[in-house]
């Protein structure tokens, strides 16, 4: 996959003679330090990252971490102090005013935290704004705007004014306005943060299913770990203008790059109070060492769609067998599972905290076996299910509050 957006050594320093700030950052000074000494505000400090075509990149950080500044540097609503923003091989930073205008029209759709709908225009007039300023003729742009309103489920509301809609519906208009453009990149600045939790979850689901259809390159700003885990193909974590970690949700959860990331993950992480028992799933299939041979085990794995299977012996957990090994053993004509049995997997007790499960999951390619004191298999934990359970539980708890 191509790198649709490539940001290289991007700086945004607010204040007089911002170049002084760059030098101080290069010397390793902190944001507060620079503020005290020079009154310069560090927005973004030496940020480099890329966004692949068709992926959702979530930029996450607490307020004041520079994430909104960063996304505004990409379409130059804020002019960066130094650095490059390369989109499809064009350095956006070097464009002149007219060139930038055309570039924005072609490439960038943007969705704002507080919707930023035009109050004097109807829903459909809002949705067609981007096309209108490109000079598209009225019939054609209305048709396109109606299509994108239909995509976000607002058919029938086109002649209402934004003030007549609920928050969630207003943001759908915001989304439709960005979609109607046919731009290949969507910049979403805390797009769902102003919505209440239930609506937010709906909108997240909807964005994901929309994304399946339209395949845009999306840069999504959020301060919410759940949202990042749910939406992000990859996550960039920011603090005080610096990018502190970049990676998939699992990489960030399982291998925090530094204390800040760890704390961020921990602070917003319910995994401390969750135990293995509450996040495990029922094993979809098990093999019995007394009765099953490689062929039967393979068949069970194929049937359940898994690549390894736990083996029981006299009701106790005995070992694990992979599909590859089972297939080879079957070729060789072996009858028993004993020879290909692997013992090198993790057993955890039902009350192990979910926090301790992440490192275990990170170092093994097998599922974790949850066993009781009699070594009986109670359930299994796989990476995907752990993350899914976590975010599901956290959302439920939020709704209760």
């Amino acid at each position, binding site marked *: 996959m191509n790198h649709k957006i490539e940001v290289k050594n991007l700086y945004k320093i607010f204040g007089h003679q911002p170049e002084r700030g760059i030098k101080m950052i290069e010397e390793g000074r902190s944001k507060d330090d620079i503020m005290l000494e020079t009154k310069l505000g560090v927005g973004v400090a030496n940020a480099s990252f890329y966004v692949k075509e068709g992926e959702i990149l979530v930029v996450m950080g607490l307020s004041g971490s520079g994430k909104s500044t960063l996304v505004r540097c990409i379409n130059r609503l804020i002019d960066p102090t130094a650095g490059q923003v390369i989109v499809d091989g064009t350095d956006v930073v070097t464009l002149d005013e007219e060139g930038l205008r055309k570039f924005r029209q072609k490439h960038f759709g943007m969705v704002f935290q507080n919707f930023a709908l035009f109050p004097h225009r109807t829903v459909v007039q809002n949705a067609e704004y981007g096309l209108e*300023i490109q000079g598209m003729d009225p019939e054609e742009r209305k048709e396109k705007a109606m299509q994108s309103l239909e995509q976000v489920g607002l058919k029938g509301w086109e002649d209402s004014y934004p003030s007549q809609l609920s928050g969630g519906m207003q943001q759908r208009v915001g989304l439709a306005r960005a979609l109607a453009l046919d731009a290949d990149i969507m910049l979403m600045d805390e797009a769902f943060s102003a919505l209440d939790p239930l609506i937010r979850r709906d909108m997240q689901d909807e964005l994901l299913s929309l994304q399946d259809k339209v395949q845009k390159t999306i840069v999504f700003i959020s301060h919410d770990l759940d949202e990042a885990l749910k939406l992000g193909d990859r996550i960039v974590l920011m603090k005080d203008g610096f990018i502190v970690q970049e990676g998939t949700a699992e990489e960030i959860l399982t291998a925090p790059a530094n204390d800040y990331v760890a704390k961020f993950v921990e602070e917003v992480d319910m995994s401390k109070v969750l135990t293995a028992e509450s996040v495990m799933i029922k094993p979809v299939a098990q093999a019995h060492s007394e009765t099953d041979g490689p062929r039967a085990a393979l068949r069970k794995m194929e049937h359940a769609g898994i690549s390894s299977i736990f083996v029981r012996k006299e009701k106790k957990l005995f070992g694990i067998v992979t599909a590859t090994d089972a297939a080879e053993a079957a070729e060789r004509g072996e009858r028993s599972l004993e020879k290909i049995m692997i013992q090198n997997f993790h057993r955890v007790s039902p009350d192990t905290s979910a926090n301790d499960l992440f490192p275990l999951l990170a170092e093994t390619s097998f599922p974790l076996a949850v066993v009781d004191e009699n070594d009986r298999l109670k359930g299994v934990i796989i990476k995907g299910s752990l993350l899914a359970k976590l975010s599901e539980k956290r959302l439920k708890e939020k709704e209760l509050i």
Partner: protein
Amino acid sequence: MADFRIPIGDSIEATIDFFVDNFAFITKAFAEVTENGIEILVSVMTFSHPIVLILLITALAYYLTKSYGLGVFTLLGLLLIWNMGLWDPTVSTLALVLISTLFAIIIGVPLGILASISTISYRIIMPILDFMQTMPAFVYLIPAIPFFGLGPVAAIFSTVIFSMPPAIRLTCLGIKQVPSELVEAADAFGSSKAQKLFKLQLPIATPTIMAGINQTIMLALSMVVIAAMIGAKGLGGEVWKAIQRLQPGRGFEAGIGIVIVAIILDRIMQRVGGKSKPAV
């Protein structure tokens, strides 16, 4: 100390004299044209029987505001003015106000837009406005005479200067008050400056701009009355005559006429401004 006097007055006078000597032929020509214009406007307005114009204005007031109350008030008020024998001066006052306001808007709104988008022009225009607004209105009458001669055009000139500041100020304010995220959104979709101005900033600023125009009209009305001193006719002229002849009754009648005109204009403008308010 008393020997030396900074020659502020002298230098202003010298400047004005210079302009009068060199440019008065232009302004005098302009005065002639405008004066003819005013005469035509007044004669059109008084061409038919007063009752026709009264009904027309009443209908217009009702059409613009959709308010029965204002319609009735307009009808009765104008009939009273007619009854007091003040119809002709009222028409010429209205004509002066309309023309001055038109000039004030044509000059003021673009200046307001300019001040809102350029910091430099903001810094130049605002102190001048402060100066214009605090200077006693009478002072504008003096230089108007050598440029335009006694009469309605000199009155219009000083009225435009006196009434323009609110139009500039509130246009500028209205545009600056457009929420920055809306401006950001317009930018993000690649709007040009003109598109941003006409599709976003001006529509959203309209209620504020209309409030400014309302103030401009009210100031124009008060100035047109004062300008009677330099030969503008109209209701102000009636008041001026009453002062000179010590006729308090006649003076009050003309004063009531001015109040009626002011209320009608103010109410109409308020409704028009309120109606164009976007649904927020």
